[in-house]
Each structure stands twice: as C-alpha cells, then as structure tokens.
C-alpha cells in the first residue's frame, strides 16, 4: 500500500514537471524538465516493480537512467557553442 502512495506522489510531480516543459520560455528549461521527468519515471518503474511483487523491473530502471543521460546530451549537441576552440563535449 505504501508503494501505491509513493507512485501517486511521483505522478503528481511528473505533472508538475510537465507544466514547466510545456510553458518553458527557453529550450533549456524544456530539456531540464524532460531530464527530471526521466529520472522520476525511472524511480517509479522500480517502485512499481515492488508494488506488484515483481522486482525484476530494476534492470529496466537502470537502462532507463543511462538512456536518459544519453538523450539529454544528444539533444544538447544541437546547440552549438560560439566559443572558438570548443573542446567541450
């Protein structure tokens, strides 16, 4: 029962992050809030696995975190840095 309450709170916070993702003034707000949504959902996948007595979902959660990081960096690659010698990323 406590895991279902946790899932409810995680769903509410995903909705709050989605508000910022929709009305973000800059594109970096949207990238940041999408990254936060990915982290919250990855935590929610493992909590869901514990709530339904099937804790094998932890592997999916690990994969989700790494793919979330790669996706954020890959979206950020589209914004070029105007510095001359940009060895960053």
């Amino acid at each position: 029962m406590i895991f279902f309450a946790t899932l409810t709170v995680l769903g509410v916070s995903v909705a709050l992050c989605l508000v910022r993702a929709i009305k973000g003034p800059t594109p970096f707000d949207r990238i940041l809030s999408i990254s936060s949504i990915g982290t919250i959902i990855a935590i929610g996948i493992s909590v869901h696995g514990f709530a339904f007595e099937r804790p094998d979902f932890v592997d999916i959660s690990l994969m989700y975190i790494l793919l979330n990081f790669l996706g954020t960096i890959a979206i950020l690659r589209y914004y070029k840095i105007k510095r001359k010698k940009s060895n960053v990323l």
Partner: protein
Amino acid sequence: MSYNYIELITLILLAIGCFFILSGSLGLIKLPDVFSRIHAAGLIDTLGSGFIVLALIIYSGFSLLSLKLLLIPIFLIFTSPVTGHSIALFAHESGYKPKGKNKK
C-alpha cells in the same frame, strides 16, 4: 515482530524521498531562471531518488537485487552533475544571463 520495524523504516524513508521529489518539482515551477531551476532538478536527482532507493534496499533485504538497486544512485551521482553543468554551459553560451540585481 522485526518485520514491522522494517516496514516502518521503509515508510519513513519513502516519505522523506517523496517530500524531496515533490519540493524539487515544485521548485522547477516557482524558481525564476534556468540557472536556478538546475538547482531544483539536482534535488530530484540526488536526494529524492537516493532516499527512495535506500527504502527499497532496506525493504528487499540484502541480496543481488539490492546490489542492482544500489547501482541506480551510483549512476545518478555520475550523470546528474554532467547534465546540470552542460545545460548551464550551453544556456550561458547561447546568451541567457541569470536574473539578479547587480547587473554589469
């Protein structure tokens, strides 16, 4: 009887983690700037997920599953500062300045 203690500890740690995640996503709405919203997003990545995963580890006992659960905060510790730093760097280089009183 010790099982009840484990459930109580799990409940308390889950409540702390839920508080941190909820306050982080609330700060993502209320804070005025990109550079200050990164702070709120870092709260979700480190403290919220850390407390919830710690609660799951204590609930599941110590086995291979808890080792897999322990890998989640380790990956988040490595990836969250890189994400925050690169978002701040790209936002600052594309012309957005942080809001504040002392403008130069």
